[in-house]
């Protein structure tokens, strides 16, 4: 044990003696670790975020499918589904996308849902039950169209006429990830804007009393109404999970080439021992160091370099992802849209990510330096000292 500590001390001082050469390796190693750690942290945070948000989504959504496309669902389906045992409330949802030619953005338009309550995420006042000609908008919409409470939002309806809506409330920035591109309007305005046929909704949300029955109810709905597509919450969660895994893995595979380049650099640096270093090892062996001691020395040198770069890389990635919202990788991982919410990610790092990171950075580095350090360790003292 003491022997290892002494060798470690010697390794550190010999690393310090060749600052520039080692600094080059450490900085490249740190960059590679940072890039890969950023990818892992970012996808993980997205997964967590999606999970937290979807916890509140309905257990089961029923859509109608016509010719393989999502179609409007007749309200007569509501009663049919309500008749299934174990089903609670079935509610139609009215929503759609509105392309805004002025800003080039897509708004998500929702007809004012029943039972909405005044919450702290909204500024302004909520309209009464039978009012129309108003809207509640997300902060992204407000920014894009320069709107404030009391202003008018102009939209073009299905017949090309202008629909003017008074802004009654704006969602706060803190809820941006959910409400950024949202426009909430009344049912009559919604029908005018999109010209929905009578007795149809966009889709239905189904409440299921017993969570273990969800899969079963979904099957029954499909059997009862063959033209529908029931989507369970766990399916959505799983899809998000594999989507982000896939995106993260894809980027990781792309950056595998940078790991390869780094490995070549490390190999090159480790092979190209200077005459001075050779002489040093020769002298060490001449004064009684064994080959295995020199190998231990090389191991501690490699371990110090790996540890320093690995930890610095993780810290830099943490800062990059959670303080600067991962400016470098956002476009590839997040998706894109004109009205994109700008949000801070919740810091979340676990041991697993560090293990994965260790595997893709430290393992290749070590593997590339084993043979060169062995070559250095077996040098004959007399041949190098003679020069």
């Amino acid at each position, binding site marked *: 044990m003491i022997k290892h500590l002494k060798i470690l001390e010697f390794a550190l001082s010999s690393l310090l003696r060749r600052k520039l050469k080692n600094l080059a390796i450490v900085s490249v190693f740190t960059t590679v670790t940072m890039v890969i750690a950023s990818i892992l942290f970012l996808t993980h945070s997205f997964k967590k975020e999606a999970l937290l948000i979807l916890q509140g989504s309905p257990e089961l959504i029923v859509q109608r499918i016509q010719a393989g496309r999502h179609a409007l669902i007749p309200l007569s389906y509501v009663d049919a589904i309500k008749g299934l045992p174990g089903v609670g409330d079935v509610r139609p949802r009215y929503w759609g996308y509105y392309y805004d030619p002025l800003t080039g953005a897509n708004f998500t338009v929702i007809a004012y849902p029943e039972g909405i309550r005044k919450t702290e995420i909204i500024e302004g006042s909520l309209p009464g039950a039978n009012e129309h000609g108003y809207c509640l908008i997300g902060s992204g919409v407000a920014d894009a169209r320069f709107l404030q409470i009391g202003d008018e939002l102009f939209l073009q309806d299905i017949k090309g006429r202008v629909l003017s809506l008074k802004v009654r409330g704006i969602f706060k920035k803190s809820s941006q990830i959910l409400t950024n591109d949202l426009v909430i309007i009344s049912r009559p305005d919604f029908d005018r804007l999109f010209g929905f046929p009578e007795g149809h909704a966009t889709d239905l949300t189904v409440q299921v009393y017993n969570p273990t029955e969800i899969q079963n109810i979904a099957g029954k709905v499909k059997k009862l109404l063959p033209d529908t597509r029931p989507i369970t919450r766990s399916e959505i969660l*799983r899809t998000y999970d594999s989507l982000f*895994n896939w995106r*993260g*893995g894809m980027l*990781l*595979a792309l950056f595998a080439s940078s790991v390869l380049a780094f490995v070549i650099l490390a190999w090159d640096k480790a092979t190209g021992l200077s005459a001075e270093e050779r002489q040093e090892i020769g002298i060490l062996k001449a004064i009684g160091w064994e080959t295995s001691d020199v190998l231990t020395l090389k191991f501690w040198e490699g371990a110090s370099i790996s540890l320093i770069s690995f930890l610095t890389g993780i810290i830099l990635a943490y800062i990059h992802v959670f303080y600067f919202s991962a400016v470098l990788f956002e476009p590839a991982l997040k998706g894109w849209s004109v009205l994109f919410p700008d949000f801070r990610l919740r810091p979340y790092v676990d041991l697993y990510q560090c293990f994965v990171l*260790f*595997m893709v950075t430290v393992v290749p580095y070590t593997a590339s330096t084993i043979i060169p350090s062995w070559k250095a360790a077996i040098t004959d003292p007399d041949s190098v000292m003679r020069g």
Partner: protein
Amino acid sequence: MIFHPGIIALFLGSAVVVLMLLYISLLSVRVLRYWDIRSSSELQLSLERKTYLTSTIMNYILGYQIVSALLFIYTVDSLHTEFVGAMCATGVLNANPVGWYVLYLKVLNLLLSGLWIGINILDQRSPEYPLTRLKSALVLILLPLIAAEGYLEVRYFLGLDPAVITSCCGSMFSAQGKGLASSLTAIPVKKAEAGFALVWTLFFISGTLSLKYKVSSFKYVFSIISVLAFVVSLASVVSFISLYFYELPTHHCPFDILQADFNYVGYPLYISLFLCTITSMLTGIYEALRRKVERKDVVDRLQRKTTLSGLVFGLLFLIISLWPMVFSSFTLQGY
């Protein structure tokens, strides 16, 4: 499934290890053919130097095996959200049964590389390198095993199909089912506890005896019992130890204890058991190699160390596994 960061890391690691192992296997073939410690030819000198490379690489491979075993379990465990019906590693392993063989091979390879390192330590401490041929032969045995592990790992992850509805630990580790897992579970708790107590008592008795007396049969018995203790303990984890951690008399899963809900207690539990088995087995292996080594005092000193650490790690394992039985209010009296 291939684009999961954990899976990419595992593939990369396996590829690196198999390549390095392939390289030292070529060296080992030459060592087996030409090794002659009395010769002072150039060939012998270069072979002697290359044995250093072999042992360095094997050290790294052992390190890798440890990390990869943990990473494998952790990755499989974290994938459970993507399979309907899976709630932990069991469900994900069932999704493509090849996974079980990967797990078994990982355990086996971990034990074998640990033993290799132990033999290497003895070899390097004896001036005449008496075990070099044996070590080379062992490398050639390890190569196909680790390559098979890598191959099956690839087969496993590529064959995972998230649409498959798998059965979870709740139905697999239940007494009514068929197969090994269920028969382990179906062992009556009392009998399993008695077997567990018996094996570990024998383990400590034989360990103390082999520390005290220089009788070779004690050391062999100690090693054999340690292997027995390993198997019995793994069975006991399924049969009753895990129940105390879950405080649930029907839940027999050996993987759930690795999850955060149980404070990751599975990691120290399994790691101490592994270390205990490897070090105790080495005591017997050193005994078997004793006649090959000239410096008997080196063997004695190493055996003392391995026996002691075997006992210490065994004790640690027992403390961790018995802790909830003694200190929690949960009992299995009715079962």
